[in-house]
């Protein structure tokens, strides 16, 4: 049976990632930056205490990006690697980092799109090898994190999850 590899990000990698996002947010004049998985799960945001519903945002942005890639296929285009939504107050920019990772950021009309594109492209050059390491290194194997003890405790927690429900 083939082993499935999860994406496991360690403290050191996360510090580097957060550093890149923080710098990117500053130089782009962005309101909010986030890294999410292509399956719709948030990884980290900058600022970290942002008031947005990041879970919904990640699910919708990943879905939207996935649909964009399929549009490219239908149009016989090799790939659309960028998704851009222009709003009245703010804009949303989504770019692919690796096969599993997307970068999204929002910014206002006081920031030029070209500036955002330039700096996000530079950020991708730094982020890409970090995530490739997280996917390929022995740390990418999740078995040392999700062990039997975790499995047992999670099972108990699930049993206690909805005690008052009418089954």
């Amino acid at each position, binding site marked *: *049976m*083939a*082993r*499935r*590899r*999860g*994406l*496991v*990000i*360690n*403290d050191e*990698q*996360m*510090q580097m990632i957060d550093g890149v996002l923080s710098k990117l947010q500053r130089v782009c004049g962005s309101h909010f930056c986030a890294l999410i*998985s*292509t*399956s*719709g*799960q*948030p*990884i*980290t945001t900058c600022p970290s205490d942002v008031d947005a*519903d990041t*879970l*919904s945002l990640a*699910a*919708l942005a990943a*879905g939207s990006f*996935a*649909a964009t890639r*399929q549009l490219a296929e239908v149009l016989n285009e090799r790939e659309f690697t960028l998704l851009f939504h222009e709003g009245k107050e703010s804009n949303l920019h989504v770019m692919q980092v690796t096969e*599993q990772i997307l970068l999204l950021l929002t910014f206002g009309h006081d920031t030029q799109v070209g500036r955002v594109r330039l700096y996000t492209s530079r950020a991708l050059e730094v982020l890409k090898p970090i995530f490739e390491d997280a996917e390929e290194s022995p740390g990418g194997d*999740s*078995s040392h*994190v*999700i*062990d*039997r*003890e*975790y*499995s047992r*405790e*999670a*099972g108990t*927690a*699930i*049993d206690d*999850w*909805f005690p008052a*429900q*009418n*089954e």
Partner: protein
Amino acid sequence: MALINLAAREINYKIVYYGCGLCGKTTNIQYIHRRVNPSARGRLVSIATEEERTLYFDFLPLSLGTVKGLRTRFHLYTVPGQSFYNASRKLVLQGVDGVVFVADSQISRLDENVDSYLNLWDNLMGQNEEPGNLGICLQMNKRDLSSIFSVADLTELLNHTGSPVIEACALTGVGVFETLKTVCKQVIAKSSRN
């Protein structure tokens, strides 16, 4: 693919409710959303048509709390059941950790159930998913109706993996949480083994 963020001490799992159109996938998610403690769930996001048929997906994040120091979340998705939305179903299946196949128990829906079941396996194989690595559960929905298949017959048709089977009536909530608990436990058991 479970996403594990050691720095933030978080694990996220993705569970997809699959099945033919009008089998009750969205009803399951809506019931869970209504009955779960609001502190344990996020916003229910639905991308639906004007007729309230699922166009792309429904999404509901649930938090199990902290287990062994790791904040554990399950992200529930549904797929659009209508046959012509297969491109969307493939997208929603990306990175899946567990699948609930919701079968409509009515005898009149046999063809739709079988088509959807075969379509699920086609799409999983298309993504090189090993079925043994996924948590899978068969929910037999609409058990309160007349003219329904027996559990044995539906199991024979729609459960070649020998996965757990749960009888349900999603409208009233019967079997909804039992299904959710079953697939969540399976997903965690599989991820600890992979």
